[in-house]
Structure formats: structure tokens, C-alpha cells
């Protein structure tokens, strides 16, 4: 390529490549790798906020955490929330991605609106939902009350309120709904990238072949974006699995422990409770699961791509 001999190191592809990559790689190793190892060390120690000595205690923390009934429930809740919300996220994201890869009047504005839940910082959007689901003043309850679903003779409840965040079932439903609400746009955007990368020739061909909308969708478009759908799923599952912001603002894990998820629990034990070691152990329980999920999905995606 270059007519000159690579006398200067800046001409050598490998040297420049290594030089360019090194700072970012080192920074990440330092800022992610080191804390990660430290998390493992904490998990095997008895460190607290007050006592910062690292004494090796073996699997005591993990055993204590695993024997804790609350932890088991928290673990199960996290998995349940993640799985249920993914079903709805994928469903809505597919519909929305198909809508937004078509041309229609007012698309720009519609897109702005549907992106808002994702664009707004989660904790701030949750303030809106906190009010929407308020025990006393919930606008949703107000609508239901006016339409006769609530209040004396109401179908849903005789009460004037549903107590969205105070009743165990509704609190769980609310958290899942809000998670779906805020994460559908991201999955949609990823799927849109997939849909718009399908060659137009293929779609024209399907049209000439006599395929109608649903057939093209089910037999051509969806199979072709399957690898990207897996990536979208990976993104939203991992985001959701590690999230604590939604429940921190909405319920703080309540009522009782019904909406407590792993991230929040580890925060409450490790930071608020001051037991760094146990907090670290709690969050470490999530790691093998996350890793397995990531590897499984990336392999599925790349296999689908190679085909």
C-alpha cells in the first residue's frame, strides 16, 4: 500500500493498531476488571463499611445468602420479571419496528413520542409513573372510577382506588408494565436496524412472487432479522436483570418483598446495610447467569448469521 518502507512506527499497521487500542483496553481493564476481581474477593471476605480488612472467610457469605429465604425470593422475582417482560417487549417491539419502517404521515412526531420513554432518564420517568400509580391520586384510578370500574358497584373493586403499588399482585404487574414501557423503544430501534438492512430486492421479489403482507412478514422478514432479534433480546434481558432503578423509585422492593430484585437487594444489604461482603456475594450470584445468557445468545446469533 504505502510506497515508503515502514521506517517509522506510525506506518506499521500492527504497531498503530496496538497503540490505538491499548489506552481504551487498559482503562477498561482497570475500571471494570479490577473492581470485578475485588467483588469476588469481597464475596469471600467479611468486609463491611466500618471494617475494611479483607479476611478470607470461604464460602460463608454465599452459603448465608443462599440459605436466606428472602434472597431466594428475590432471585426468583428477578428472573420472573425479566422473562415475563421480555415476551411483551419482543411482541411490541416487533409491531412498532414494522410500523416505523413504513412511511406514513406524522411519522417524525410519532417517533418522537414513542422514543420518549427510552430517552428520559429512568429515574425521572419513574417519577411520572409513581404519580400515575399513586395510592390515592392515581389518574388511572380516577379514569376507572369515572367509568364505573371502581367505586361502589365497580367491577374491579368496591374501593375508590386499586392501590397499584401497595397490593402484591398489582405491584408486580405495575413493575413489569413499566419495564416493558421503558424498554420497548430500545428493542424497537434495534429491530428497525435489522428490518432496514433487509435488501429491497428480496422484498420486491416476495411481492412479485405473490406474497402478501403477513406471509412476507412471517416467512421472510422475521426469519431474516432473527439474529438481530436475539441481540435485542440480549440487550434488554441484561439491562432488565441488572436494573434496580425502577423498583428503587417505585416500590423500594415492597410491598413486603414482592418487587425486590437482585440489584436492589444487593444495594440494600451492601450499601444501606453496610455489609459490603454479603452485598457483593448477592450480586455475584447474578454473574454466572448473565454470562451464560450472553454467551448462549451471542452463539445463537452468530450461528443464525453464518447458516
Amino acid at each position, binding site marked *: 500500500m504505502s510506497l515508503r518502507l515502514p521506517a517509522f512506527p506510525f506506518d506499521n499497521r500492527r504497531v498503530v493498531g*496496538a*497503540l490505538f*487500542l491499548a489506552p481504551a483496553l487498559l482503562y477498561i481493564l482497570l*475500571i471494570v476488571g479490577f473492581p470485578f476481581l475485588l467483588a469476588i474477593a469481597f464475596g469471600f471476605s467479611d468486609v463491611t463499611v466500618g471494617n475494611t480488612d479483607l479476611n478470607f472467610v470461604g464460602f460463608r457469605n454465599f452459603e448465608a445468602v443462599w440459605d436466606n429465604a428472602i434472597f431466594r425470593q428475590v432471585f426468583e422475582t428477578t428472573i420472573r420479571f425479566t422473562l415475563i417482560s421480555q415476551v411483551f417487549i419482543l411482541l411490541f417491539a416487533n409491531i412498532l419496528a414494522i410500523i416505523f419502517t413504513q412511511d406514513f404521515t*406524522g411519522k417524525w412526531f410519532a417517533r418522537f413520542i414513542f422514543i*420518549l420513554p427510552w430517552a428520559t432518564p429512568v429515574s425521572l*420517568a419513574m417519577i411520572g409513573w409513581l404519580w400515575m400509580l399513586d395510592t390515592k391520586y392515581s389518574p388511572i384510578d380516577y379514569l376507572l372510577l369515572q367509568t364505573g370500574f371502581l367505586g361502589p358497584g365497580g367491577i374491579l373493586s368496591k374501593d375508590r382506588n386499586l392501590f397499584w403499588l401497595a397490593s402484591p399482585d398489582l405491584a408486580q404487574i405495575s413493575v413489569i408494565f413499566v419495564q416493558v414501557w421503558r424498554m420497548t423503544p430500545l428493542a424497537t430501534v434495534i429491530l428497525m436496524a435489522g428490518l*432496514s438492512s433487509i435488501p429491497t430486492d428480496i422484498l420486491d421479489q416476495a411481492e412479485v412472487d405473490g406474497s402478501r403482507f403477513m406471509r412476507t412478514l412471517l416467512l421472510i422478514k422475521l426469519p431474516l432479522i432473527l439474529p438481530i432479534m436475539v441481540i435485542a433480546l440480549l440487550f434488554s434481558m441484561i439491562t432488565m436483570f441488572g436494573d434496580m432503578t425502577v423498583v428503587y423509585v417505585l416500590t423500594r422492593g415492597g410491598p413486603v418483598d414482592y418487587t425486590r430484585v437482585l440489584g436492589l437487594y444487593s444495594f440494600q444489604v451492601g450499601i444501606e446495610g453496610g455489609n459490603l461482603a454479603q452485598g*457483593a456475594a448477592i450480586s455475584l450470584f447474578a454473574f454466572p447467569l448473565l454470562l451464560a445468557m450472553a454467551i448462549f445468545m451471542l452463539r445463537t446469533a452468530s450461528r443464525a448469521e453464518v447458516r
Partner: protein
Amino acid sequence: MGLLSWILTNFWALLVIALLALVGARIAWRILKYGATRDELRYVLRRSPFYLLVLTFCFFAIAPFLIMFLHTFKTDGDLYRRPQPFIFRQDPTIEHLDALFNNTAYLDFIRNSIVVGIAVVIITLVLSLPAAYALARLTGRWGERAGILMFLVYLVPPTLLFIPMFRIVVLLGLKDSPLALIVVYPSFTVPFSMWLLQGFFKAVPPELEEAALVDGYNRVEAFLRVVLPLSLPGIISTVVFTFTLTLHEFIYGLVFIADTSQRTLSVGVPTELILGDVYFWQPLLAAALIIAIPVGLAYNLFLDSLVQGFTMGAVKG
């Protein structure tokens, strides 16, 4: 204020009228263009379920924001006594907006968020621009592996790392300082923007750099003079999304900083504007809305670019 108050008191009527007017104008425009034929009528009827679907999704997406908007201007009496969330029984007021900006640390939060955001964007660009270029062009198999590693790092959730990071921050004496966030945030912004930038760099034809090399520039100069200017739109959208990532971050901000005046928006608003059990709803909702709108606009503006970078980054090669 007069106009605002009129809009607010007639909000729902105005919204319905605006929607109907838009639909009417659109149909009228089509009739002017294609004539009022039966085909045209059939077309309108066939399209309407689609628009209804769009409208339904839009309604769910925007509902909390509409409520935020209306409640920002409600007086306490209107909000709490005989609640009627959708209309104004008392005249709209801007006293809560006034209070938000003058009696709370809201402006401090905004300032902290901007400072942290800008510093993190700079660090992120310095680290990820060359690294992304190396992944896109310069390195072979091991570079690809490093790229996958980076992708996996992006997937490590903050809930896994915040406890040891908290210890490190305390040890470094950075607790309660935005500097802690500036140091830690690149742990997720660098992998993210590397991934995105790599896609944009791949879109630049390699022949252009090769031409620069033949013209007597070295690799580094070719990168600075050819690749960077050509991928400027992509870099700008990376900056936008990196900045908003820092704006969104909650857990580190919550754990590392306990001092009110040092907190960022995402943590400060939901923790500091609530005094124990007392929620100042109007300022709270206003504070959320004021951030949501510009970020939403920025996302919409740069979305196509993001999708393009994502697609290019996903394509192997």
C-alpha cells in the same frame, strides 16, 4: 401566562381539535391531489386502522408525560383536594416552576450533570476514537476478540460492580465528588461508543486512507485527516448518545455521592426533592419533564444515525 393558561384550561379540547384538524388537512390534501373518488375513500378507510394502532401506542408512550405537563401548573388545592387530574378547576400557576428553580438544588443538579457529562464525553472520545478505528481497520483476529470482550464488558451491569467500586472511590477520597463519576462512567460509555464508532469507521471506504498513505501521510495522519472528518456526523451522534448515557445513570450516582449539592439530575431529583414522606409533586413532575423533552428531541434527531452505526457495527468484516 395568559396564553399558557388558556391552553392549559382547554388542553384536551385543543388536543382533540388539533388531531382532527391534522387528519382533516391530510385527507383534504389527498382529495385535492387525487380527487374524491371511491378508491380514495377506500384508501382512507384501509389506512385508518393503522393510524389507530399508531395512536394507541403513542398514547401509552406519552401518557405519563402529558400528566407531568398538566400537573406542573396545578395549584396544591387543585391537585390534592377533590382530585381531578385531567382538568384545571383552579387557575394554572407557575409558582411550582418558580420554586423548582429558586428553592431547590435543581440548577445544581443540572450543572453537575452537564459537567460530568462533558468530562465523560471527552474522556470517552479520547479513548474510543483510536480504539474503534483500530478495531475497524488495523487489527485482525485478536482485534476482533478484543471487540467482543468490549461488547461483553458493556453487558456487565453496574449492580455487579458498584460495591467494590464504592470501596475504591472511598479509598481514593473521591466520595461525594463528581470526579468519582467522571472516572467511573467511561467503564460503560467507552465500550458503547467504541462499538458505535467502529460501525461509522467501517462505512468510510478504505481506498481513501490508502490514497492518503500513497500521498505521503502515515497511518495516524491518515486517520486524523481523512477518517475523522468523514465520520463527523457519526461522531456527533456518538457524543449525543454518550452524553445521554451519563444522564441516565442512576446506581453509581446514588452510591458514590451523598452530598445534595454534588448530585446529578437522575439521582438528585428523585431523592432530594422528596422530603421523607412529603412529595412535592408539581416540582418533581416538572423536573422530570424538563429533562425528558430535550433528550427525546435529541434522540429522535440522531436516531437514524444510531441505527446506521448499529447496523454497520453488526455487519462482520
